[in-house]
């Protein structure tokens, strides 16, 4: 507990770290895409990761459930280090919800089947109960009426909300969002952000990689700014957007906030 610096603007509640990355390094060939990343996410915290393209923020997000492996360092979730590929890892992934930029709904299954698959095959839930839970979740994200359609019949915004419901159906401890609105038409972005806002208000622990500064401002407890594979700045949204301390962040914000 003592190692938590008091100079941080938003110190996570001490001792309740849900996700902890320490000295994480990763290379893609010669490219050092994650450089000595230290990041702790507390239970119930909403952390928004922003930064220019190629800064490593998506990779960072994907290492947390080991869709990307790391070269060195450690990642723990709820105190347990990420295991090697296998049953242990699968069990851990079930507790970590993930929402992708390209939705990745199972194209050969209906919306309802998409949301029940994990419950039935991983959680070994009863089919009927899984369907009830799935319908309730689909209603919650506002696509209950689409339950029997196939993903290709839905709009992007609807598909992404189904993807959120699919992840929530597993009862995850933490939700990872990898640019959830980047592939959406502008008019559909808000319907997805609203669902995410609601989740944040309900106390879900969230790591969100996004370019939506409005969402970062209103929903985040903490903003993490990445550039060139490093965490350049961590601050509360107010602090970060009104008074960024690093030149790199000032430069980034000046390019995106003036139109």
């Amino acid at each position, binding site marked *: 507990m003592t190692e938590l610096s008091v100079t941080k603007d938003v110190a996570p509640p001490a001792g309740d770290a849900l996700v902890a990355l320490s000295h994480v390094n990763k290379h893609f060939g010669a490219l050092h895409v994650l450089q000595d990343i230290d990041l702790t996410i507390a239970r119930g915290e909403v952390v928004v990761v922003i930064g220019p393209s190629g800064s490593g923020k998506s990779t960072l997000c994907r290492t947390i*459930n080991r*869709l990307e492996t790391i070269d060195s360092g450690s990642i723990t979730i709820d105190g347990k280090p990420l295991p090697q590929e296998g049953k242990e890892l*699968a069990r851990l*992934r079930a507790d*970590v919800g993930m929402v992708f930029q*390209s939705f*990745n709904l199972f*194209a050969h299954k209906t919306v309802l089947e998409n949301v029940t*698959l994990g419950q039935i095959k991983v959680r070994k839930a009863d089919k009927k109960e899984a369907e009830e839970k799935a319908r309730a979740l689909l209603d919650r994200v506002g696509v209950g009426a689409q339950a029997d359609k*196939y993903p290709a019949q839905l709009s992007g915004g609807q598909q992404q909300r189904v993807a959120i419901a699919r992840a929530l159906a597993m009862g995850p401890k933490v939700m990872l969002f990898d640019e959830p609105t980047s592939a959406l038409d502008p008019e559909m972005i808000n319907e997805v952000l609203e669902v995410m806002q609601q989740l944040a208000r309900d106390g879900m622990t969230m790591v969100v990689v996004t370019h939506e500064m409005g969402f970062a401002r209103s929903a985040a407890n903490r903003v993490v700014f990445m550039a060139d594979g490093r965490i350049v700045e961590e601050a509360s949204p107010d602090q970060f957007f009104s008074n960024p301390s690093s030149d790199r962040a000032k430069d980034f914000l000046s390019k995106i906030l003036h139109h």
Partner: protein
Amino acid sequence: MFDFLEGYDLLGAFWVTVQLTALSAVGSLIWGTLLAGMRVGPVPLLRGFGTAYVNVVRNIPLVVIIVFTSLGLYQTLGVSLGSDIVNTTNFRLAVLGLVAYTSAFVCEALRSGINTVPVGQAEAARALGLSFGQVLTLVVLPQAFRSVVGPLTSVLIALTKNTTVASAIGVAEAAALMKDMIENEAQLILISAVFAFGFVCLTLPTGLILGWVGKKAAVKR
């Protein structure tokens, strides 16, 4: 005009062809799927086995494989596949040989189908906590199969015609009867035409029906 057909069991011979085809098709679909699973799987030993199997088997002429099942497996090693009757043994050996051969092509067709499934599908499945086997059987293979109905139809049609090789080890299917008739009858062209027609009757509907199935089953993205 078709007097020469008298005394020959044409339907019986084609029935053996149909049986050879059906059993070999089911067998090679199962074994070919397992091979494809090995080739895309995470275990290096199985991956190596799958790759070696496909590259060895698909490059050996079918007739060599079929003859080997009889001369090598049966007559040298005494593998009779649970039958005392020579004809039954030969039939089973032929199915074994056809399965061994055709599954290499099924595996490769399926593997190309697996490559059409976007990586994100498997990633989403893994992120839910599904095991490798579940990712493959619940998410990847169902989509892969739908995209390779066309190529698999070609494999099935080739298999139907390849069953004629079974006559090399004395299985009384259509081609064996044809040889028999050619030796005993004078109407050589007509005999060939009858058997050609027989095969077209088997394969043409197969192609049409599976073409329709392929369209129906295609995954919309």
